[in-house]
């Protein structure tokens, strides 16, 4: 099932927008690098680059790229089968529906994890490889760079798991997931303005707590203590687990009533 899902996620025209979204930061970084070269601007130091990347990662990559990418992948996992009228193929197999939901979810996490993880690797390469002779090597191999890179990859995977569970459950519970997704985007995006108690009801708060480079959120931000890493990790996994249970319960009562029947 995993193999079938991966093929469907990557090897079809519908996957193209998600792939383009995933590699948007890569394109932006490449353009920035090109512009710096063409205008012969002085190169940033490694520490400044790490800070700039931290901002890009938190404010653009996590909040928009992974968010929309996961929306594209996960809402379509089961809803897509309904729209293409092929869900009965799975429902007529000797497969418990909760196992089916978990299988779909894992396929989405693997697909999204590979896609966005690859994007992070290329982004980091574009940021640091040109500076290997200017302290980049020491930063990556002897300094905090390697740990930060690993953290970014891990956070990306958690973001896919967290947003994936949100959108999988959403795709199964509402007919049109666009409007709830827009509300969730607003909630996640404006998280820095929320009081500390409300901040914790979001995926982005826990992801930010795990980020290796803190990012300033401006004068209007309401500061909150970051959640300890272990708690953030458990919190995200628990959230994904609860949402999967919701999705599985919904799937168990799902009927095949394709539109137009």
């Amino acid at each position: 099932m995993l193999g079938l899902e991966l093929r469907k996620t990557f090897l079809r025209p519908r996957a193209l927008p998600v792939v383009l979204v995933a590699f948007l930061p890569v394109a932006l970084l490449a353009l920035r690098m090109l512009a710096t070269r063409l205008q012969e601007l002085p190169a940033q130091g490694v520490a400044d680059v790490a800070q700039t990347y931290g901002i890009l990662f938190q404010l653009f990559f996590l909040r928009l790229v992974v968010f929309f990418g996961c929306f594209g992948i996960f809402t379509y996992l089961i809803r897509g089968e309904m729209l293409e009228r092929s869900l009965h193929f799975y429902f007529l197999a000797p497969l418990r529906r909760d196992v089916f939901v978990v299988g779909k979810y894992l396929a989405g996490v693997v697909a999204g994890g590979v896609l966005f993880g690859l994007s992070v690797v290329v982004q980091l390469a574009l940021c640091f490889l040109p500076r290997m002779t200017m302290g980049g090597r020491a930063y990556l191999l002897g300094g905090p760079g390697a740990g930060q890179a690993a953290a970014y990859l891990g956070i990306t995977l958690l973001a896919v798991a967290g947003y994936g569970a949100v959108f999988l459950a959403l795709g199964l519970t509402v007919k049109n997931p666009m409007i709830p997704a827009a509300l969730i985007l607003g909630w996640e995006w404006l998280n820095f303005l929320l009081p500390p108690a409300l901040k914790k009801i979001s995926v982005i708060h826990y992801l930010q707590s795990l980020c290796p480079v803190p990012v300033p959120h401006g004068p209007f931000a309401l500061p909150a203590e970051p959640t300890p890493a272990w708690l953030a990790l458990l919190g995200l996994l628990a959230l994904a687990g609860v949402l999967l249970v919701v999705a599985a319960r919904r799937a168990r009562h799902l009927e095949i009533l394709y539109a137009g029947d």
Partner: protein
Amino acid sequence: MSTVASVLLFENVSKFYGEVLGVNRIDLAIGPGITSLVGPNGSGKTTLMNLATGLLRPTEGRVTVGGLSPDDPERLFEQVGYCTQFDTYPRGIRGWDFVHLYLKLHGLADEPARERAQRAIERVGMSEAASRRVAGYSKGMKQRIKLAQAIAHDPQVLLLDEPLNGLDPLARSEVIELLRSFAAAGRTIVVSSHILHEVDELSDRVVLVHGGYIVAEGAIEGVRDEMAGERPLAVLVRCSRPGALAARVFAEDHVVEARIDPDGRGLLVRTRSAEQFYLLLNRLAGEGLVEVEAVVPADEDVQAVYQYLIGVPTGTAS
């Protein structure tokens, strides 16, 4: 696969789609052999099959197949194969994968799954086309690959929703033969159809469904014979050169009408002897007079047949 008592049981089952009636207060027990659910389009046949396989949930009542609830798909689909009416498939899938992946979902290792897929595909005569994408199949080929999937895991109970729809005469008789061989092995086969001629050819027993109710049930033997000559059967043949076919079939005594479809790619034939017509069509196709793409029964006036069969107006609850 293990054996279970092959009995399909509906106990006071009702299904409503919102306020629209699907089926109402159905009590039905189906045993081994071939049973046909007969009724016009929208009468509730597909609803009954979908309820039996868990694709729909009853609003009231209980359905069991071989003692198993549709809520237990893991065990149920070890015993049940269902050839649905849905003509949609996972996008881009090939005929072979459609059957093989289904067997893999049954938990079979690759090699046994390949062997079984091969066998099932051979049984429905799709070996040559199996490597092609299902999306490019004709209606009849899609029917056959669905049938291959339904029988691939060697189920004890086989549910087939309009399985002969769109099959050419040769494939049709092969499928009927296949179903008979399944029934002869003591399995339970339920076929839905709105074509009495098909039912007559296939079934040990019929269940007449109309307006969501079971109108009548019992053996069909002899009924069709009584009707022969009184009520011509309509068949739509999608083919090349429908004009040539019309000229040829119209010379036959049993053909009462032959009308070319407005799109020029089909011929509607009304015949008093379906058997003779299918034999003739087979022969003409064999001689190369026409290339037959599909043969679709087009007999819509089933209600009149019910009245003839059971002697009461349709829609009367039993």
